[in-house]
């Protein structure tokens, strides 16, 4: 999706290449690469891409931000860039200014609920919150008796049980017990589903980026590795596997960029946008499974080692499936929507753009 004339993506790719090279990061014994990377991203205004200037951000378009996430996927970037972008975006929905530093969003799954009580305090539990442990602030979507509100809270006010997802990134449980927010404002017309869909499309773009990279390194490896006295790329079985990986990568990219384009140009989260966003998450998750398996098959044992970079992509792509609603969750929801609209309204929905 990255347009070559997209300055946001160009800037990000340069930073990723310099400070988040997957092989360098993979070789590092400590996490000392993280601080310079985050600093460079922050100086370029990238974590707050989706926050307007007057709320402390850099005011990039939704489309540029989505392209940036796709690029981050291509580098398997393991700092809370996507999470801070989503948090800033969420806060901006209620015209709340974004603070500096890492953020993440609560809740990160469709089943969890945070409540806002009459005293303006927040309570509830959110599981699988990406990078909660690294965040300085949380952007929270909460349900109160007057509807949905959006709040900014200090991360130290929440109780965090640290965990890791299958990609070895932090995925934590955050419990809020009558936490007083820094700011809280009502968010009329906004709901948790909208946040989940936005988060899901962000993850879809990251998965698509990871698959592009997996295709790239798998093709390269097959052109180098010799077995049975020839490059393995010359075996038809390997060629056909890689063709299928290209198909999965293409499907993920098409679904994710289409959903991003739909959101970037929509005036509301209507049925058409819902179809786009849920389809992207469902199809990208399926591609992460099928495509990742092929990438590993092509690499053989070397791809199963911690020394090799493949797992940085393959495991993260699998982990990203779980955030903001898994593919099976969204499939049920999309199936209900389709059934509810009725058989003769299915095609008009699919053909809506």
């Amino acid at each position, binding site marked *: 999706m990255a347009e070559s004339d997209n300055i946001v993506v160009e800037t990000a790719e340069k930073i990723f290449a310099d400070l988040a090279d997957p092989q360098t990061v993979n070789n590092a014994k400590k996490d000392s690469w993280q601080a310079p990377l985050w600093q460079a991203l922050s100086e370029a205004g990238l974590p707050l891409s989706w926050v307007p200037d007057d709320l402390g951000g850099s005011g990039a378009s939704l489309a540029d931000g989505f392209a940036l996430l796709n690029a981050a996927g291509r580098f398997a970037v393991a700092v809370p860039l996507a999470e801070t972008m989503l948090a800033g975006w969420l806060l901006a929905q209620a015209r709340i200014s974004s603070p500096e530093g890492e953020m993440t969003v609560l809740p990160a799954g469709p089943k969890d609920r945070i409540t806002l009580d009459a005293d303006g305090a927040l309570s509830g539990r959110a599981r699988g919150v990406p990078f909660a442990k690294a965040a300085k602030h949380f952007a929270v979507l909460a349900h109160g008796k007057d509807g949905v509100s959006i709040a900014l809270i200090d991360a130290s006010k929440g109780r965090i049980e640290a965990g890791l997802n299958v990609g070895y990134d932090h995925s934590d449980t955050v419990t809020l017990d009558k936490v007083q927010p820094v700011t809280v404002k009502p968010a009329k017309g906004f709901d948790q589903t909208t946040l989940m869909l936005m988060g899901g499309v962000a993850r879809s773009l990251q998965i698509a980026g990871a698959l592009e990279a997996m295709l790239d390194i798998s*093709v390269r490896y097959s052109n180098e590795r010799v077995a049975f006295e020839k490059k393995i790329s010359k075996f038809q079985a390997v060629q056909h596997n890689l063709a299928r990986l290209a*198909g999965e990568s*293409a499907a993920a990219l098409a679904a994710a960029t*289409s959903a991003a384009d739909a959101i970037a140009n929509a005036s509301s989260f209507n049925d058409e946008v819902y*179809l*786009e966003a849920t389809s992207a998450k469902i199809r990208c998750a399926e591609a992460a499974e099928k495509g990742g398996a092929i990438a590993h098959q092509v690499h053989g044992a070397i791809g199963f080692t911690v020394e090799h970079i493949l797992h940085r992509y393959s495991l993260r792509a699998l982990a990203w499936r779980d955030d903001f609603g898994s593919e*099976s969750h969204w499939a049920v*929801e999309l199936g209900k929507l389709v*059934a509810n609209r009725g058989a003769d309204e299915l095609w008009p929905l699919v053909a809506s753009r």
Partner: protein
Amino acid sequence: MTAALRFDPIRLPEKCEQLRKEVRAFLADEIAAGTFDPHKPNREDTDAPEFSRRVGAKGWLGMTWPKKYGGQERSFLERYVVTEEMRVANAPTRRFFVADRQSGPVLLKYAPENIKMDILPRICRGEVCFAIGMSEPNSGSDLFAAKTRATKTDGGYLINGTKIWTSSAHIADYMIAIFRTSQPTKENRRHGLTQFLVKMKQPGIQVNPIGQITGQYEFNEVVFTDFFVPDDHVLGEVDGAWKQATSELAYERSGPERFLETYYVLTELVRAVGPNPDTRSAEGIGRLVAQLHTMRRMSVSVAGMLQAGKEPVVEASIVKDIGTVWEQQLPHRVRDLAAFVEETATNRETLERQLDFAIKTAPKLTIQGGTTEVLRGIIARGLGLR
């Protein structure tokens, strides 16, 4: 990145939506008039010459072609909309579909002016049916093994040999075929084949129907015995058909017909489960819709690239690979879910009848118009593996 695959999110322009409304209204009228039954998918049995003329009269055939040949000079995206609406409605498109998609564009590119002026306007009016003569009894996917000879004679060529699996040859007015004009060379085994326009329904051509496992007689064996083709029916370069083949593939391989062939069973399933599906049915339908939506967006994206004058051969092959595998599996996935449909569903019999036909249709979908194996070979070449 070694593989710069692109599927930009194309939005259909406003005029497409107006056109879509017109096509839907037209099809609704045709259904009301009894021209065809949208719930009856075996459209291949239905040759509908009058319907074909009415579609032509609407200006929906050869839509992208120059006006002087009867075309409308409209965009590929507009043609896309017409094609998908016809397909989803199960309209009887057999008589004009190949001519509109494939044969017309070949003639536009390679035929002499007199032939273009003669045939293209008739395609646009929905008056002529085309067949494609590629496969032979001993050459299917290996196109360049074709043996049917075209021997030079006074003013033209004499054709001897047999084409096979030729869809619609029994009703076709013309065939665009490849015949052998020279032997392959040591350096190039693809050398020596030439593309020809053949006027059907003449002495020297015998069409023998072949029964298919669906119960239909859609494809044929076509035997040529000293059949004369005049010189001006040569399309393109003599001995050089291989150079002309690849650029057509993007048109042939990425259209909505490459994933909508069995779509009707999904609609019927949604009807059968009703507005409140159980979790298993909802999840199954949701996944199928997400996959369908993704493929359509990929296919529309390729149409957009064609409109922009690009030749996205690899992207088109990916669409056909994923699309045909999907439409092949679709009847089986719908069958899985149909097991949970209530006995009381009013369209149960329709669904079962459709599944019966779709399951029998499914095996051909990954064979016709380029097998899955051939497509994956093309994709692999695009990735730099061959």
